[in-house]
């Protein structure tokens, strides 16, 4: 399966390598660099590259390419999914997954990789188990480690891998028992020129942070579970129970995890929280273009639309933009031609607008492409699909935990064509 792993940074240096079987020379990455050069954008490097003796499967995360070397047939998604899991684990351990962080923690990284794969086949990928094997670096522990000269390797051998519930370690203890659930929904939409919705869907996730003592067994029920169209679960969720009763029943992992992600697709259920009035024109023969953008709240159920950020990739011919925002700040990068406008909160009384002119390259003909506008936003305390958690119960333990549920709506891939 996975033979070797190379970590390549944005400038094309291999800064870490790990081999699980016999050593593969790093020159194999030359094929990868070749492909990288051919691709115009970093994300356009093909994830799977075939070389005479090996196959390279790579993922790009945090501007680092994780290049896995494969020698024989293996489902590519298997490798890709695993590499993403590696990145997630790094992120979990070090807070971020940057080149610097990896270099600083190279021993921990190595130990992690050693545990995660055996002979190229995934061994332990659950973060709970890994954390038992290798303690994540914390301020205190690193301090102690420096003084005592110990590492992050767990003193005791883990039991998690052998427990009945492979994702939860045994003997968890907290003084404050808390369980928090965040229902986060993202709206993916394409709005066409005239403002009508071409496609819209809601992608939701329930992220949980559970810090409960012992082996709690939780059930979470919804007021309107029928909304959920397509769900995928953390392995802890009992699927049969969901099928039969639409109730989430699970023994949670310890700490942070994603309980489920779901999909609400029926379009009439998707409320579009903002509208955009736009007027972006280039006149033939003139070196000027007009830019006029107004945002307004649409269906927000009385909640404020916050953290609005508008970005648009202007045509290559645009040299500069001279705009005037009614609120917030805007920036235009003349190199990448990326216009971003940080709007902030939308005030329904005074709608934010961005008006002004764009200067074009003199003599160049009018660009015939129209920029699309991408919008990010946040609405607190509301799940736009209307999903509501009914109740959360705990069985199997005696204490009374603190339970908290938070709703949030965000714009996902929210695009307005002009």
């Amino acid at each position, binding site marked *: 399966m996975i033979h070797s792993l190379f970590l390549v940074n944005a400038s094309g*240096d*291999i800064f870490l390598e790990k081999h699980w079987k016999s050593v593969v020379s790093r020159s194999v990455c*030359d094929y990868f660099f070749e492909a990288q050069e051919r691709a115009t954008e970093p994300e*356009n490097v093909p994830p799977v590259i075939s070389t005479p003796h090996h196959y390279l499967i790579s993922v790009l995360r945090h501007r680092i390419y994780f290049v896995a070397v494969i020698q024989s047939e293996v489902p590519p998604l298997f490798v890709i999914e695993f590499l993403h899991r590696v990145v997630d684990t790094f992120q979990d351990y070090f807070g971020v997954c940057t080149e610097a962080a990896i270099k600083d923690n190279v021993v921990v990284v190595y130990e992690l990789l050693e545990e995660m794969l055996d002979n190229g086949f995934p061994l332990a990928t659950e973060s709970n188990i890994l954390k038992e094997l290798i303690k994540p670096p914390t301020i205190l522990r690193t301090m102690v480690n420096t003084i005592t000269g110990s590492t992050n390797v767990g003193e005791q*051998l883990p039991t998690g891998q052998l427990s009945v519930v492979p994702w939860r370690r045994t003997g968890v203890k907290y003084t404050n028992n808390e369980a928090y659930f965040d229902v986060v929904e993202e709206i993916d939409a394409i709005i066409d020129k005239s403002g009508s919705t071409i496609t819209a869907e809601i992608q939701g996730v329930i992220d949980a942070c559970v810090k409960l003592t012992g082996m709690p067994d939780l059930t979470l029920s919804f007021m309107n579970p029928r909304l959920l169209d397509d769900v995928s679960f953390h392995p802890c969720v009992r699927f049969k129970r969901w099928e039969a009763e639409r109730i989430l029943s699970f023994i949670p992992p310890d700490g942070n995890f994603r309980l489920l992600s779901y999909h609400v697709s029926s379009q009439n259920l998707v409320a579009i929280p903002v509208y955009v009035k736009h007027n972006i024109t280039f006149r033939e023969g003139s070196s000027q273009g007009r830019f006029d953008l107004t945002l307004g709240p649409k269906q927000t159920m009385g909640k404020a639309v916050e953290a609005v950020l508008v970005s648009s990739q202007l045509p290559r011919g645009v040299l500069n933009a001279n705009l005037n925002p009614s609120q917030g700040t805007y920036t235009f990068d003349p190199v990448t031609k990326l216009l971003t406008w940080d709007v902030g909160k939308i005030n329904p009384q005074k709608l934010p607008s961005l008006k002004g002119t764009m200067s074009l390259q003199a003599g160049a003909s009018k660009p015939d492409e129209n920029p699309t506008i991408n919008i990010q936003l946040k609405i607190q305390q509301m799940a736009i699909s209307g999903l509501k958690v009914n109740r959360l119960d705990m069985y199997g333990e005696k204490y009374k935990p603190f339970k908290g549920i938070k709703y949030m709506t965000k714009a996902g891939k929210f695009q307005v064509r002009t």
Partner: protein
Amino acid sequence: MTTMQKLLQLPVNAVNIVKTVQSQVQGQEEDKSPVLTPDNAQQAWYSAVQPDELRHLRSGGSGGGGGGSGGGSEQEERGLQEEGGGGGGIFHTQPLRHDDLKEMLDSNKDALKLEAMKRIVAMIARGKNASDLFPAVVKNVACKNIEVKKLVYVYLVRYAEEQQDLALLSISTFQRGLKDPNQLIRASALRVLSSIRVTIIVPIMMLAIKEAASDMSPYVRKTAAHAIPKLYSLDPEQKDQLIEVIEKLLADKTTLVAGSVVMAFEEVCPERIDLIHKNYRKLCNLLIDVEEWGQVVIINMLTRYARTQFLNPNINESLLEEGGGGDKTFYCSDEDEDEDEEKEKQAEVSALAKRKPYVMDPDHRLLLRNTKPLLQSRNAAVVMAVAQLYFHLAPKAEVGVIAKALVRLLRSHSEVQFVVLQNVATMTIKRRGMFEPYLKSFYIRSTDPTQIKILKLEVLTNLANETNISTILREFQTYIKSMDKDFVAATIQAIGRCATNIGEVRDTCLNGLVQLLSNRDELVVAESVVVIKKLLQMQPEKHSDIIKHMAKLTDNIQVPMARASILWLIGEYCEHVPKIAPDVLRKMAKSFTNEEDIVKLQIINLAAKLYLTNSKQTKLLTQYVLNLAKYDQNYDIRDRARFIRQLIVPTEKSGALSKYAKKLFLALKPAPVLESPFKDRDHFQLGSLSHLLNAKAGGYQELPDWPESAPDPSVRNVEVPEWTKCSSREKRKEKKVEKPFYSDSEGESGPTESADSEPDTGSGSESVSVSVESGSPSDSEESEESSESDEDEEEEEKEKKKKKKEIKQMQASESEQSSEDDRKRDRKIKEQKSNSESESDEDSESESSQSESSDTESEVEVKKKKKVSEPKPPSKPLKKEKKEMSLLDLDDFEPTPSPQVTPVNTFLSNSLVTDLEGLSLSDSVLSPATIAPSSALKNYELLHRITGEGLSVEYCFSRQAFSPDANMVAVQMHFTNNATSDTKNLHIEDVKLQSGMRVKEFAEIELLPAGEATTAVMGVDFCDSTQAANFQLCTHTRKFFVSIQPPVGELMRPVFLTENEFKKEQSQLMGMNEISENLTLDAKCRNEHAIVQRVTTAANLSRVPCGSDKECRFAGKTVTSGSLVLATVATKDEGAAQLTVNCEKMVIGTMLVKDLLLALTQ
């Protein structure tokens, strides 16, 4: 203190000053960045390590992109180091040694050792060579400190291959570890031992793996499974031994091991599919609990397995598509292998075959059912694995479920999207409908990476059809305006493909593309020209103005491919543009020398074509062009010119070919087919690397084609196949232990055991053997009666009790059995059959009865008739009957009814049950099958001896569940060959049925010797109607038209209801659904038992317990639709009675009333 010590001690070289400064700088950065707030202390460690590490970083890191790192010798490193910029100068004189590290490793302080190991690991991580430290490191393998140990292991695994001799020093430590009481230490020792690629230790590894494979701890066994492929890659010679271990581990029941061992199986012996048989059901059932990575591997393997073991569920459709090849395959019903084998031989009976429904193997169904929940997995690889499984294995109607899950994956990382879209693109070609509802999910966003955009475009194009083309084209219009030019070009091609595939929009598309010709972007125009050319080729006559328009474009378009395309078009269709073409040639001749090669070639072509059609105007031009071409730099063009001149310009010498010049050049060219690049990619297993690359990757296991006929499905049964042969108790016991594990329901071992114990007793299972041997119901009844006569009254009570127990057990087993797959049952029956067969040799009684029956067939018939007309003996004799039966085969009680077994024993058991009902009205749920009080079964004549030319056939409704299809009525046929010659190849042909009815014919009877008799069971789905099933009964010489008409009472099967349930159901079937009739009971049938007997004889109903003795209630369900049928006989004084039938199906109800009336009054 250690820190201080380190800081003082470690920075041995001059660089460290620089380093500390650097580290400070770095430290500041870190403080600012939110990255690692904690890392103040880590930093301190970092700075301590840095001098050394950085030195290495310099030396290699800067030379990074270049080649060798692994085997890099010191020499090489120094070379690199010199190249390396930065502070490299300092190192020039410093030889690369690791004295300090060696010193630290040799010290007796764990902290120092650890520090050294950390640095060494950091070096390895950066790809630096640390092999010279091997002796120093390997000494520490026995270190007590677990952390040091771990890092030493890392080092060992990395360098052992290079330093084989030294690596051997460590082996004993691992061997000790393998004996450790702690399972984790055992596992880790095995893991490292097997990771060391040193050939010498292969035997040691083999031994360790074998031992670990039978370890108590599943974790160690898992590690053993992981070690198998490692050893295999080290020494393929060990394959045979490893397969043994794999076989052993495959039988493991823990989820922890399953994934790993299948992985090992795939790497070592993927061709040994036979190893999977016995574990198939277990794997299916465990699947959901296996960890996600294991799931992927198992699912992929099972896909391949299923392709070799089951039949194509879409066989009917594919057959229609292919126009009816391979009739044979139709015959395989997977249910009884005997039938299959025989059926294969009668391939000629194709007409029948086509109507025959495909029956999915329950194991096939099991796989589909158990993988479906995994579509909900969070792991994209698992979802993809299930998706490909469904795509390759599921019936067409069911494949749709995967679409939703795949569309969900499109939300994931772009790499995941990339792979998923590739697979979706392949799927959309075969099964477009599946993704049509999700069309909008493939709409393209401007922020998608180009490779994703192009794949989405591919999917959209594949999904386009008459209904959605307008929406798709509107989307395409937006895409054409995109800034991403590669994407625009792909869109234009997509439009072209839509236009060729969907005739209605061809003109629209063409017009749209023509408009694009005026686009400012040359790439767009060029792409459009190429696509238009392809489209025009399909119907050139209609579009001469487009050709004209394009001719004008030659002035502007510079892209060679586009110019060449235009020229080709004009040349090809010069008749449509007779005026313009010569002018274009004139212009081209002018610019000939400046054109690209590809354009030049087309100019020559154009000239040639014009010369042939319009030589008057273009003769000179052509010669000019040819002359220019003659001196061109490109030999291709010179060759072409020379060739064309010879061909078209008539000279004295010109050969025979010139006559055909016109034909050569102006031949009708077939229109190009614009095909998806994903067409036919599904011959690779979806989701595989090979599929993605569209080329076979190393180690790819071909997805086998469906077998023509299903291989023996019984191989998956957990019992050893040669069960019947094995007589030793121990052996059977072994199997027994295994068995409950595979079953769905827990605690079935009881019944299983009873089934198992059955053959052991060996005391004549008379009734069974008789029924099997003679087969005819009448015969069996006969023998029974004879046995009745020597009943033993004394033991009555005792036996009754025993019997009761027996029956309960039997019921339990049956209910469990019926919920289980039918196959198991079949198997058992067969086993019993063979058992009883062997027994019958010893059992003279049964033999004699058999011979008797076959000899005096007519006599039997007479007797039978007599018997039917006779009233049933009252309860007491019945009890005796039962007792008698138990006397003989206490242990051999047949627990599994089946069509093969004649009704004798059921008759007994059923009457028993009816009897028992009075005794125990317990709540215990009794299985409907056992309760069926099928009394004497009527025999009907299908074929008379005289019309059948010696062959006589009778049939009766055995009232057994027809195991291959629960919706069918089992019809038991009894063939007797009264002729003097053998009858061969008895089978059914040319079934004529009312719509909706179905027949499952019996397996062909190859030979029926003269004077012999045999039985067979066929299933008929009468669709709850009394319409006859007509068919031909064929022998090797003759065909007989026969028909089976069921009495209405046979169209139902008994159900068990309690009194309350009965009342409740009855109250819901009032009004039109209720038919009542007053009657006077026959004189002989005024007691309760007689009524029960008569009703149950007339109709396949079961008695419902009832508190009052004035009422008898019966319940059943129609076989096909499952509508409830309730009958009540309320007796009054003087033989008066009221019969009430409640049934949703009024026709059935009415007919049933008639039949019951007849039965009760006669």
